[in-house]
């Protein structure tokens, strides 16, 4: 009889730590369509370690480099951002067959579905200030001094926009299964009206939004999650993504279900020491919706190519994609005349 997943994980950790390990309370966590995520306790030498395992799936929403996620966590853990501590990076897969990494688990925090109404009441405003101040601190850091600089390409300030737009436009080219005139129009408009160079290079989390953090239920973030799309680029990219209407929990007055837009930007500016140029930000807001649609188009393709086996990919490639098209069309009509 072959070893169970827990036994193989225990064998790996025993080798890594040089002593016997037992695995307890192993369970997969829902979501995380681009990595399989498991929680478990590792018991070794009488000590219990609460941990998270993130393993590459056979198919994923987006092709991401686990080294980047690991080094992004390493860049911010213990540096004023609630990034979980990364512990082990296994690039070959070893006993678990696919690459993975292990990080410390932060217990006691709650997360929210990005589609549930008013998930942060009654501490939404306080949490919003922590959320946007945290993002501001990420933006303020000098990436050249951080571990992520060892694995991430550093673009020129005037090349950030093109690199990101090219990447996500290529994803659409590769994965589109039905013609998408709305996002195609948005891509052309972005190319025709490039933004000014980034005012500074920053670590871009890549998926900083409502639903991608744990909070304590009293207005404080206890863990910033899902750093798998981290890179170095224009800090406005993250702010625009966080403000995308997709993550507003159906609200019109508050962004991310937490703060009025002007307040969110003010908190971010205060924490980052940067200013939001409205014209540059208009570009990054439209780009955020293009990037979103690229991810949803990609998930629809992976749903089909993966034999329709992962329901969350279906939801993203179907329901979320339709909503993103509405957001894109509204932006084009209201803010991007020829």
């Amino acid at each position, binding site marked *: 009889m072959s070893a169970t997943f827990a036994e193989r994980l225990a064998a790996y950790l025993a080798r890594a730590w040089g002593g016997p390990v037992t695995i307890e309370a*192993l369970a997969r966590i829902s979501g995380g369509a681009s990595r399989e995520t498991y929680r478990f306790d590792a018991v070794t030498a009488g000590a219990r370690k609460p941990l998270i395992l993130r393993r590459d799936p056979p198919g994923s929403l987006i092709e991401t480099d686990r080294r980047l996620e690991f080094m992004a966590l390493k860049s911010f853990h213990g540096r004023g951002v609630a990034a979980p501590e990364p512990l082990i990076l296994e690039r070959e897969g070893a006993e678990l067959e696919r690459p993975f990494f292990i990080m410390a688990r932060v217990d006691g925090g709650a997360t929210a579905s990005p589609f549930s109404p008013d998930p942060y009441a009654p501490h939404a405003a306080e949490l919003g200030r922590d959320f946007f101040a945290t993002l501001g601190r990420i933006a303020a850091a000098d990436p050249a001094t951080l571990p992520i600089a060892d694995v991430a390409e550093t673009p020129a300030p005037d090349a950030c926009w093109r690199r990101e737009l090219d990447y996500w436009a290529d994803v659409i080219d590769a994965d589109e299964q*039905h013609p998408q005139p*709305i996002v195609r129009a948005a891509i052309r408009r972005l190319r025709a009206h490039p933004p000014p160079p980034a005012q500074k290079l920053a670590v871009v989390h890549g998926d900083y939004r409502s639903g991608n953090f744990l909070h304590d239920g009293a207005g404080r973030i206890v863990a910033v999650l899902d750093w798998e799309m981290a890179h170095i680029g224009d800090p406005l990219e993250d702010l625009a993504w966080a403000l995308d209407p997709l993550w507003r929990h159906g609200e019109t007055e508050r962004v991310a279900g937490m703060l009025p837009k002007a307040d969110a930007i003010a908190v971010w500016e205060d924490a980052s020491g940067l200013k939001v140029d409205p014209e540059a930000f208009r570009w990054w807001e439209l780009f955020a919706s293009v990037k979103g649609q690229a991810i949803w188009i990609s998930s629809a393709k992976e749903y089909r190519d993966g*034999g329709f086996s992962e329901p969350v990919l279906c939801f993203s490639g179907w329901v979320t994609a339709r909503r993103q098209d509405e957001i894109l069309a509204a932006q084009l009509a209201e803010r991007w*005349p020829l």
Partner: protein
Amino acid sequence: MTPTVRDVLQGCVAALSRPVAPEAGPDYAASRVGIVSMLTMMAAAEAERCAGAAIKENADIRAAFADVPADYDASLAGRLSAAAREVDEDLDVPALDAVNARLRDLLIELHQAVEAAGDAATDANILALYVRMAAGRRM
């Protein structure tokens, strides 16, 4: 449109018929069933309306083609004019989707030509069409 209702339901059946890996645990299995349940209900709603949505969108795109000024290049103008005169005859959803894909490709080509010509009025009409297209597919 993708995924089709068939794709969605095929995935729901696959998800329910394959056992969840033992290491995933009961909470994950319950969550998976929850997503499948929601997708099934949404597929039922989509099945009722997707043919009508496709017919309406196809008609809206053809109307936009009919309104285009005649001074675009002859090849494009001819294809726009021909597409504008078509009607949906085969009302099976795969047939409607195939026509929709062809019309959308032509719409992309038209919009590129409009942008190149700096035709702000037609551009505004196309952007308004996009708003209607997205709203018509709302779930």
